């Protein structure tokens, strides 16, 4: 297995401007009030990653309760909105619509540090066998710049957007992407699922669907938030990238590993190439109870020490942004 360390330097505000992000969060809170109407959904008794029935209360946020699996440390929402409730939420959420279509997605820093980086990761990592169809499917795409980056690569014979969000429709219409809302008898060489797997009522079921859509030796490129991540472990409900009801399952490294390998994937690469954990904690230092040792590093040490610490987090797979490349075993 390989692990990726990246050393790019940028600030959290460049990819998540505070004003716009606060507006997004407020819209989501309004959505919750209007759409969920005190009905939090269905209890789940097993960890969505490893299946363990042992868990403990972790925190609650905007009226939703998160528990931590006692076996794999995945953090998951229970009760959680049913599939119907989620459909209703995503169809009507002003917050989701605002954020997915916001100009923020098109800022230079976000394009360079998020979408181009993902496209380059795919370009560097793919390896087609002689009987591969060289086809690509993006699973629930939601950001236009990424559709454009993938189109520009010209790597694939066929490009498919599976159940795309409204926010990418214009970009898709200008590209060679075909839209599918259901797939029968079609297999793909490469599937990407960026920031989507944590949003399903049953994420393991979504991973099984992806597995069934891949050719033998086909590749899954996946990104999601990691419960093993430094800033998530300390910020918990104050973590700005845990937004209920959107982020329902925050996989730990151990949890996602178990889920993928049980389905039949071989994990080729597992990385947490996040560069922002320390910046995020530093900005929210009043929201967390840090051990003195960590507080000293963050408040009293210079940038080179912080950069080394952030690199250590990546090396130890303890940053909160997780990327996985997995291969469908024959």
């Amino acid at each position, binding site marked *: 297995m*390989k*692990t990726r360390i990246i050393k790019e330097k940028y600030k959290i505000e460049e990819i998540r401007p505070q004003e716009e992000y606060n507006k997004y969060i407020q819209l989501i809170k309004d959505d919750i009030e209007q759409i969920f109407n005190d009905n939090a959904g269905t209890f789940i008794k097993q960890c969505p990653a490893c299946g363990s029935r042992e868990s403990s209360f972790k925190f609650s946020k905007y009226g939703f309760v998160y528990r931590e699996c006692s076996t794999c440390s995945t953090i998951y929402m229970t009760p959680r909105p049913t599939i119907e409730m989620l459909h209703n939420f995503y169809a009507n959420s002003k917050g989701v619509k605002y954020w997915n279509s916001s100009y923020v997605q098109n800022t230079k820093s976000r394009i360079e540090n998020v979408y181009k980086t993902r496209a380059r990761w795919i370009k*560097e990592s793919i390896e087609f066998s002689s009987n591969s169809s060289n086809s690509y499917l993006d699973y629930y795409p939601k950001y236009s710049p990424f559709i454009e980056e993938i189109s520009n690569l010209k790597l694939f014979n066929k490009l498919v957007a599976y159940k795309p969000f409204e926010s990418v429709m214009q970009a898709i219409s200008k590209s060679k992407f075909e839209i599918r809302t259901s797939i029968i008898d079609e297999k793909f060489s490469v599937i990407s699922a960026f920031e989507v797997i944590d949003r399903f009522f049953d994420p393991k079921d979504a991973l099984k669907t992806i597995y069934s859509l891949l050719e033998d030796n086909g590749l899954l490129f996946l990104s999601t938030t990691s419960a093993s991540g430094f800033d998530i472990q300390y910020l918990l409900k104050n973590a700005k990238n845990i937004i209920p009801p959107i982020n329902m399952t925050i996989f730990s490294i151990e949890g996602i590993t178990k889920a993928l390998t049980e389905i039949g994937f071989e994990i080729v690469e597992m990385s947490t190439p996040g560069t922002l954990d320390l910046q995020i904690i530093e900005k929210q230092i009043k929201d967390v109870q840090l051990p003195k040792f960590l507080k000293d590093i963050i408040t009293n040490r210079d940038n080179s020490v912080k950069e080394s610490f952030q690199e250590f987090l990546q090396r130890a797979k303890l940053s909160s942004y997780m990327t996985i490349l997995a291969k469908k075993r024959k």
Partner: protein
Amino acid sequence: MKLKFGIIGFGKIGQLRKRVIEELGIGEVIALADPNINSFDIDSSIELFTDYQELIKLDIDAVIVATPNFITSQAVIDSLLAGKHVFCEKPPGRNLNEVKEIEKIFSKTNNLVLKFGFNHREHFSVREAKKIIHNNVLGEIMWARGFYGKSGGENFENEWRSDKNLAGGGILLDQGIHMIDLLNYFLGDFDEVKSFVTRSFWNIGLEDNAFAIMKNKQNKFAVFHSSSTQWKHLFRLELFFENGYMILSGLLTGSLSYGTETLIIAKRNFSDKGQPNEEELFFDEDKSWYFELNDFYSCIVNNSQVIQGTIYDALKAMELIEKIYENKNF
């Protein structure tokens, strides 16, 4: 289909090959030949010989040749003449003439597989770098620098490797051949060589350092250093392209003494003041021995041609080594 294997030479590498054959389930080792075979504790169902000529008379499909250099080429030739498929460890002989003799015999065989053990090609860092080149991420390669060295060790002067008659060559032939093969693999075959080959420290009749600058017909250049006075073990291969670079540093070996196997990738960017953002991949396993033998097995059962570690690769590596030796100054 399971093959019947015989192993000639049951030292460290012969034993490793036996284990890999068994773990892969590609066949059964039914015979071993080694002058010291009676000193090993071996399963009684395996036939044991002190003379490999007895082994190749058996009804076996394939032979692994893992002998000291002075036996290697003759053992390969005798095995081919006995109608066996042959996997031969590096170096393929003590000198170019010995390898040419192998080629002469092999060219007269039909449907036999001959593969040489250049296992560094199958290390994950090398496979990844080759994939990135194949996916044209960094443009045309321009030049490379390859350094490979070890410290010799306490008993170095008394090893068979340090005996000119038994080994044929010093560190250049023993370890440097891997780096020579990789430089050929990444840049193409070199035809012009400037070199220094010297004995700086060890009291042996063979070189302990070899330095070379090489050029090929495509105007690609390489700097090479092979050393047994590298007191801290080193493997480092720098590959520079029109649009960026890759550095392979460290190598996952049995001794773990070459450091973490990493691949650094960076894109050229003139605005970064010579400090580009590097991405680093590190690898936590070495499957090279498995990939090599699996490929050997596939070539036999599918009657297909060897792609990695061909007689051509062996000849090219030995030709280059011979050119470097032309400037031996001790």
